[in-house]
């Protein structure tokens, strides 16, 4: 896979996900975000958003995050989508490109959600092939993000850190560690989040994601939902601190996609991530007590009744 030069590397500081309601503000006031993350799929045509991003990138380093490639699909990646991804990638030369350990196209339909794959040798071979195809087309390594999961597979023969580590070895890809996803999946599937993070190859982690989650009452107990619709939970901050101690500072994204708050709220979360990283780096005690998980419960999520679909439910998130 030939290497190419790209936009300057992401600094190991907090960045913010750029969403359309904030674009004007970012252009007019140039807030001091360390870098910005964009969803590639929002810039795959020649519309107003694309023109605005041309201006944004003059002042910010970009990390490009894909949500539609379906790297976990047994039928392979969507080649037409991959061509569009390359177009966006070439146009904006982001410092990082990332996608998910997930599939999202089934029976020819784009499901607009990220679905997990079993962790077995067959899936490993398929995902690795799809990553290699992607990296060959993009001519650069990509980061693979761990998913938040609500189901586990009976046929899995390895845990997710082993699966991700094997992908790194086979394809040369990096990892995007979504700590909220680790927390959510650990709760939903019953594994130890700290142990999960400890098993990852730290040198492969190129970016970290932090986001909020919600809780959904189901017939088999509460399920955490990765809704990107609230502040980062204290337990996730604590896991982040643990990851910082283990891996050192990494570019860290504040992700917020539903019930989008004012940009200043995102800046506040990013500032907290940077403060925490500095504190951990200096082995400071100042923030430690504040970061211990408090008795704060995630917001109840009424979007996902477990027993039946509610087509009239309040809008939610993918």
């Amino acid at each position, binding site marked *: 896979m030939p290497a190419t030069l790209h936009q300057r590397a992401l600094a190991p500081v907090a960045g913010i996900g750029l969403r359309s309601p904030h674009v004007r503000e970012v252009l007019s006031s140039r807030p001091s975000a360390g870098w910005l993350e964009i969803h590639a799929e929002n810039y795959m045509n020649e519309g107003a958003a694309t023109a605005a991003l041309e201006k944004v990138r003059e002042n910010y380093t970009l990390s490009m995050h894909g949500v539609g490639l379906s790297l976990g699909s047994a039928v392979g990646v969507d080649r037409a989508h991959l061509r569009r991804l390359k177009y966006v990638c070439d146009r904006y030369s982001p410092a990082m490109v990332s996608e998910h350990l997930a599939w999202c196209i*089934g*029976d020819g339909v784009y*499901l607009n*959600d990220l679905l997990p794959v*079993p962790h077995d040798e067959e899936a490993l071979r398929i995902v690795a092939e799809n990553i290699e195809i992607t990296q060959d087309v993009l001519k650069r390594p990509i980061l693979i993000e761990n998913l938040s999961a609500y*189901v586990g*597979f009976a046929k899995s023969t390895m845990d997710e850190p082993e699966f991700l580590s094997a992908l790194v070895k086979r394809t040369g890809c990096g990892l995007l560690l979504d700590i909220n996803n680790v927390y959510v999946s650990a709760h939903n599937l019953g594994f130890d989040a700290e142990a999960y993070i400890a098993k990852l190859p730290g040198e492969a982690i190129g970016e970290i994601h932090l986001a909020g989650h919600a809780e959904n009452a*189901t017939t088999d107990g509460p399920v955490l939902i990765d809704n990107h619709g609230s502040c980062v939970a204290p337990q996730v901050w604590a896991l982040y601190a643990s990851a910082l101690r283990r891996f050192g500072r990494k570019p860290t994204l504040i992700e917020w996609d539903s019930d989008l708050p004012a940009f200043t709220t995102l800046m506040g979360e990013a500032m907290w991530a940077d403060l925490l990283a500095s504190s951990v780096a200096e082995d400071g005690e100042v923030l430690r007590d504040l970061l211990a998980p408090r008795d704060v419960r995630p917001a109840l999520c009424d979007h996902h009744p477990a027993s039946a679909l509610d087509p009239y439910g309040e809008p939610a*998130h*993918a």
Partner: protein
Amino acid sequence: MLNLQQTQDRVAAVLLRGELNDIAGIFSTPPSRLNIYRNNTMISLTNALKATFPVTVQLVDENFFAYAAHAFITAEPPREARLSEFGGGLPRFLARFPACRAYPVIAEMAAFEWAITRALHGAETYPAPAALLERLREGGGKMRVSLQPNLNFAFSRWNLVNVWLDHKTNANLRPLERRITRIAVSRRGDDIDFVNLDPARFIFWRSLAAGRTIEHAMLRAASRDPLFDPVSETLLLFRAGLVTGFDIEN
């Protein structure tokens, strides 16, 4: 044991059609948790439609729109990951949807909003200078002009622009005024422009946008209005910044 392809086919069937029959043994967690993904799929796609058709939502109310959207998503799910491309079939679907059939304005508003969406996501290229009109005269009617790629059209039996503008400015929606309107929708920067067109001009612009020669477009427009003047009409397009280039038909 199912392979990955079979597993994904069966999960997709649950998500798209609620077919929970064939998933026994796949999961180590309760199968009912697939409803979380099913809800994510349906609700996030419904939200995407609501974002594309906000005034249609306001006309029919959110609950009804969610009901119609659910039927639409089931019938015509997206085939690719660009959600900006999803929803083009909704106006036609609403026109035939039994609960909407008696209220054609709903489908017509959806068609108008889809034209706006296409304009928002269409490219904006540099307009050709009006001085090039002389070259057009040299080429005669065999010339073919290129129009702004973001130019789109909508036809309705109601005055939809006023209602859309009311929505945009958070004003109370004015009562729908029954009046045939032919609208050109285009984008200039972040702004959307609307131009009300008379019948002949509507035909002329649409014919040119479809790649017809000026002669062909003119003949079609003249069939509606014998006094149609193609020179001044073409100049109008130039002045509106809607012409981006031209070539001569071989």
